[in-house]
């Protein structure tokens, strides 16, 4: 798996709130614009932060994407997802 296309998709979500809204409204249509394989598309679509970090993606970018879609105030929930419920 190449992380570059995944990072580009995540960064696009982060960079412009309108793109974040497009992703939230129709993830498949949004992700069709990126060269992602099926696994990559599934990971980004679900915003599975544990898998994204496990894939060695940039953790700042993963957090930014999560916050772009869920709000910066939800970092505790992000950490809870990331650590499998061990903390929050």
């Amino acid at each position: 798996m190449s992380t570059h296309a995944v990072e580009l998709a995540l960064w696009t979500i982060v960079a412009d709130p309108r793109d974040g809204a497009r992703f939230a409204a129709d993830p498949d249509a949004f992700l069709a614009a990126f060269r992602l394989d099926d696994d990559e598309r599934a990971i980004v679509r679900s915003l599975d932060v544990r898998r994204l970090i496990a894939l060695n993606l940039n953790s700042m970018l993963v957090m930014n994407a999560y916050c772009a879609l869920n709000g910066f105030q939800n970092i505790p929930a992000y950490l809870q997802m990331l650590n499998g419920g061990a903390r929050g």
Partner: protein
Amino acid sequence: MAELVGGFLIPHDPLIAVIPDAPAPHHAESITRGMERVASRLRELEVDTVITVGDDHYGMFGPGCIPACLIGIGDVEGPLEPFLGFARAPIPNDEALAAHILRVGFDEGIGWSYARSLVVDHSCAVPYYLCYRQVPDVRMIPIYLNDGVDPYVPVALARRIGESIRRAVRTHPGNERVAVIGTGGWSHWVGAPEMGRINEAFDAQVNTMIAAADIDALATLSDATVLATAGNGALEFRNWILAMAAVGATSGTLLSYDAVPAWVSGLGFAELHAPQPVGAGRD
């Protein structure tokens, strides 16, 4: 000629602005005092241009282009992030000095990227809104090092950029009184599973290096070691190296240090000292 009159290291943690009441009161008060103390020193030194060394957090620059080092030479505004709670507004830049730093850097082989229009993230905006704005008519030149996306800006390059800025300020035909401020946190993890952890032993080691303005010692910190023991956020020590090199610092005074779990970082303030009036030496 313009004159370098001071240097500082200060935090840029966005959580200071976003959840100001989250930490224990003595920690929050310490950070507020630190911002006020640096602002007070900037006023005492009659600083009118602050060169601020920040770093993108993979929000400004995307996979299509990640500058190793960038200077804003034109319009500046911020912050990028609405969640900080500051209304995005223009930030006065010192365009003439910024352009001179860029040209001197090019002449010296620095591979600057530059921006004619730049929206700064929290690494420049938090210091501006919480500290510099207390200084009348101050202008800010934003500089961004890539501390966040591997491969990171080489530490040796950060030092060379600082030295180049030092020469550029001294040869600038203006009358600015200039301070260089490195921003960032001590140990902290951003977006990583360890986020919230603080390595106070590492931070104490760094504080010793800051007190001695020991760039050589800071430069020996390998990225692998820093990532493993102090977190991806601690790679911001490059910003301090640049500031120290620009000032020609030979010592530093640690004004305060707080380990603040609620703000997920070790946070400190330091003033950098040169052996004589910073602008009066020779290179």
